[in-house]
């Protein structure tokens, strides 16, 4: 590992509310994630893992501490600058898929490229390519609502891939799927990490899902309780 890590959190806190009602969702987090890692963030609900995910994904900013993404101090960036980071470097996969329901799979995939200003023909080609990577070439013209849950999540993964991001954040990607489909999705993510060296940060509370990742980070009460990387180093 050379130079600064892709993601670097130093003493990051996130406090909701003020005064007596203030609640610390994150109580001082230090975390480095290097390029090409596959990290599972685990923890019970309320442990701060979703808050951490939102901050890592540049959707939210920390209350205290610093977050450097590719060396840039995210806390100092404007809303639009963070949108640019998401546009060019970050892909999201959500538990609820979050596709545009009445829009075809292909058009869903074109969406991130639209905001990148990619021309129509190139958008279409890239969308088809990404669909092929998740094994849904024949479903391009179906609307999201017409696809099964597993297929929707594959489209969502393809949408995260289509803009060739540096890192993919997957927030409970298997939460709405049955066991068989969950393992299909996880195999897909694992192969993406291995073949394309795509950095993946996965949030889950299931041990067998987290096991697909090389590294497990456990959150409890807004702090990192254990990190398999440090354990191995120790």
């Amino acid at each position, binding site marked *: 590992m050379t130079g600064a890590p892709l993601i670097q959190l130093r003493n990051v806190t996130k406090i909701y509310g003020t005064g007596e009602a203030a609640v610390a969702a994150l109580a001082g987090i230090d975390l480095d994630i290097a390029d090409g890692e596959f990290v599972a963030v685990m923890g019970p609900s309320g442990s701060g893992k979703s808050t951490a995910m*939102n901050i890592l*994904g540049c*959707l*939210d900013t920390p209350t205290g501490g610093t977050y450097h993404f590719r060396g840039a101090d995210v806390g100092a960036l404007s*809303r*639009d600058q963070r*949108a*640019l980071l*998401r*546009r*060019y470097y*970050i892909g*999201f996969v*959500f538990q609820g898929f*979050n*596709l*545009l329901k*009445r829009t075809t799979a292909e058009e869903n995939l074109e*969406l*991130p490229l*639209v*905001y*990148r*200003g990619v021309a129509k023909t190139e958008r279409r080609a890239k969308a088809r390519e990404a669909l092929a990577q998740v094994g849904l070439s024949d479903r391009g013209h179906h609307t999201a609502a017409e696809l099964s849950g597993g297929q929707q999540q594959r489209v969502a993964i393809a*949408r995260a891939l289509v*803009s060739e991001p540096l890192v993919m954040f997957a927030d409970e990607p298997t939460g709405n799927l049955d066991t068989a489909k969950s393992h299909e999705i996880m195999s897909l993510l694992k192969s993406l990490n291995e073949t394309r060296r795509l950095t993946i940060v996965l949030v889950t509370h299931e041990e067998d899902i987290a096991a697909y990742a090389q590294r497990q980070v456990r959150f409890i009460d807004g702090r990192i309780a254990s990190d398999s990387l440090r354990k191995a180093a120790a």
Partner: protein
Amino acid sequence: MIANAFLLALREIRNNLLRAGLTTLGIVIGVGAVIAMVTLGSGATKRVTADIASMGRNLLIAVPGQRRPGTLVAAPNFQVDDALAIRRDVDGLSAVAPAVSRSAVAVAGNRNRTTQVTGTTNDFFTTREWPIARGRAFSLAEDRSGKSVCVLGETVRRELFGTQDPVGSRIRVDKISCDVVGVLSPKGQSTFGQDQDDLLVMPLKTVQRRLAGNTDVNMIWMSVARASETTRVKDDIERLLRERRHVASGAADDFQVSDMREVTRMVETTTGILTAFLSAVAAVSLLVGGIGIMNVMLVSVTERTREIGIRLAIGAHERDVLLQFLIEAVVMSALGGVLGIIVGLAGSAAAASALKLPFVLRPEIIALAVAFSAGVGVAFGYFPARRAARLDPIEALRHE
């Protein structure tokens, strides 16, 4: 990006066709009403000015009597000499026709018609710009000696002779008989709904001597040679008549000289004010239409909160989302504007033909309507669009 937003907007409208249609209706009605009001107003003005022009251009009319609010106080009639004096002493007049009118019954064979008999000179036809359709005007001798001859208005001709040619026939007017020498071309209704063709013209002297029994003149028709001199000529005539009628200085005129251009202007101003007033009322419905659009856009933003969250998460800027919703509002209201123009033009074309008004297309009003309806979209779409753009992506993604 903008082209894309247009496509998105059209798709969104297609997906919610009924809702978009009902929302747009407010704009359709508003724009349609404004267009119809302005078009019909212009038509009415054109019709009225054409009617007034049909009385004769550059026309001045002198009548005895004093105008008081609401009434015309009677005053002695003019005399032929007054008309002669005007002709002699006032520069810039191309024709002066003293006239006396009275009601009389015209009889031809077994038909009769109560009509207006006007005793005047050939200048009458000049000032009124009224050509003879058949036969001839009066000869100099007939005019001077007060021969019993007459020229018929179209209505009188039709009532007395039907399809027959009246020239050369002899008719009876009250107690005198007279030869028909000519027929006037039809002029139609005047602005005030009067049938201008319901008259019978005889030499002035004939009427004075044989029907009226005096030398009074109750109207003087005059044509100004150059329109630019109208005001000056009118002042000269007024000064001359005051002198001849011995009106004390400081006292009000006991006669009136009307300038037809003034009447035209007055009517134009009146119809203009009326049109503006009706258009303003119609414009209020545009405003209401705009509020409707704002309302529906707010609902749409709430419904599509999750979509907005997705767009923001994958890297849309605030202004991308703002633009998307703004364009949707503008497309909706501009579509309403275009439909409104079609409805307004079709409606006013139908109304114009029903009311027998000319159909006056005002392109500048149509351009204004398009611009205004798009402006309504921007003005009323901005607030909902900004609300969408300012959404917190995390909250928006959590929205059900």
